[in-house]
């Protein structure tokens, strides 16, 4: 237990001390939420843009922490032989993974503790939010994005992994229905966007928190499939040392 707690403390210390990680996990989501809620330039098709943006930005927060932050951090740990070194201690892989999962969840809680009040302050007023479904979506999305992040981190060199994670973040942000509605994407791209994990998570979160009026079953199935396949792929492909 002591080893797990110490590893968790180290994971959190390194994440919270890293300016780039803070910008990615908190700065960008808060900025996007505030800016596009106050400056009504996005074709959100809602009376108040924040009603569309808030669930999408929560999905973005999950993606930035579970995929990009975890993936970049773990990729560099692999490149710098930190994982190899930890592998020679009594910590063991199960406790290392448990510490990383707990760290991701802790950062997500901090994100939600900041983003949800900011959204309310900007005028977000979800009619009858299903918080339980939202929590389920966040957990499933976290598994899916962590699997994708760790698959890249476990195979690519540190700098290439950094570029790949950031590039993927941008693509999933733009195509994922987080800030731009699926309906505004061109036909072919729209179909592809729906099967992306970001699109599926934004969809189910929007349904849970804003009652989007669409049947979220397909998005739940897509998100669940990502949550099973991506971690399985990471477990299969991950290399512990560079």
């Amino acid at each position, binding site marked *: 237990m002591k080893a797990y707690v110490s590893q968790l403390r180290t994971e959190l210390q390194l994440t919270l001390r890293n300016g780039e990680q803070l910008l990615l996990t908190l700065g960008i989501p808060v900025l996007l939420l505030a800016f596009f809620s106050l400056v009504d330039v996005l074709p959100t098709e809602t009376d108040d843009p924040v009603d569309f943006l808030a669930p999408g930005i929560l999905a973005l927060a999950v993606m930035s922490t579970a995929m990009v932050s975890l993936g970049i951090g773990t990729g*560099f740990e692999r490149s710098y032989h930190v994982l190899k070194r930890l592998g020679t201690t009594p910590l063991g892989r199960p406790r290392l993974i448990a510490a990383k999962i707990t760290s991701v969840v802790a950062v997500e809680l901090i994100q939600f503790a900041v983003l949800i009040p900011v959204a309310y302050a900007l005028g977000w007023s979800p009619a009858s939010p299903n918080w339980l479904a939202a929590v389920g979506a966040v957990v499933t999305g976290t598994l899916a994005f962590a699997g994708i992040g760790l698959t890249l981190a476990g195979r690519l060199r540190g700098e290439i992994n950094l570029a790949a994670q950031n590039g993927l973040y941008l693509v999933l942000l733009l195509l994922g229905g987080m800030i731009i509605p699926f309906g505004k994407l061109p036909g072919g791209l729209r179909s592809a966007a729906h099967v992306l994990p970001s699109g599926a998570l934004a969809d189910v979160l929007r349904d849970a928190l804003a009652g989007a009026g669409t049947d979220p079953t397909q998005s739940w199935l897509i998100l669940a499939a990502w949550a099973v396949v991506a971690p399985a792929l990471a477990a299969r492909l991950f290399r512990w040392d560079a």
Partner: protein
Amino acid sequence: MEVTGLTVRYGDLTAVADVSFSAAAGEVTAVLGPNGAGKTSTIEVCEGYRRAADGTVRVLGMDPATDQRRLSSRMGVMLQEGGVYPSARVLDTVRHYCALYGKGADAAALVDLVGLTSRAKGTWRRLSGGEQQRLSLALALAAVPEVAFLDEPTAGVDVNGRATIREIIRGLADQGCAVVLATHELDEAERLTDRVVIFDGGQVVADGTLAELRRGHDEIRFRSSPDLDLTALARATGVVASQVGADEYVIDAPPLPKLMAQLTGWLADQGHELTDLRAGAQRLEDVFRRLTAERAAEAGAGGDAAS
């Protein structure tokens, strides 16, 4: 630690072939060899990090492949590559490793022991190469180890730092730890080790104490003018000298008083200076070169025969 008939393969490549040696508690065993000789692969199997294709390894009576978890709590490891996150602070990192091992080691005392107290709040990336090595050693010591695998512990460390690290490693062995040291720095190994295992081409080419490896290989090494007439010197002394540097010569013979008198007398008669003179057992570097050269010659002869 007992390694018996160890073979390590990477696909079709055999990195280590049928290697056997041991390292005893209370001793420093140096594992030496050129790059790609199989040292790191062997040590990684002993640490439980890599699987053997064949052979058996026992560390503290355990099989590292199946008992890695139990073994890791009694084993200290120092990686050549460091293995520390660049933004991690010195004291935080040592404290973290002390907690991982749970042996009650005092982090601040370890930082002090390796001479990094003034850098305790600095991050890994701000440390010099030598300071990074010292921090890495402190992490190995956090295990309060019964067996320690130290990879290049003095690489990039300044003269004073080297003396500190030698003292720490010697102290570790004196407390009963089996220290296995992989290094390219033969001078350091010579000052520290009780036993030497030399790898070459994935095999052990020598295994013994320094005295055993040097036995029968005394030499006289001296520096003089760059243009000595070695034929005339051979006529005067009865032994053949070979030129190993611009002004450095070696005679493979025991430093008997008569021979030393003949050598210095001849140099004086010929009007040559004697700028340096060392006589006695071969240096570890010479033992290493001789053994690896012998193996290369055997491999060459084998190759010729085959062709």
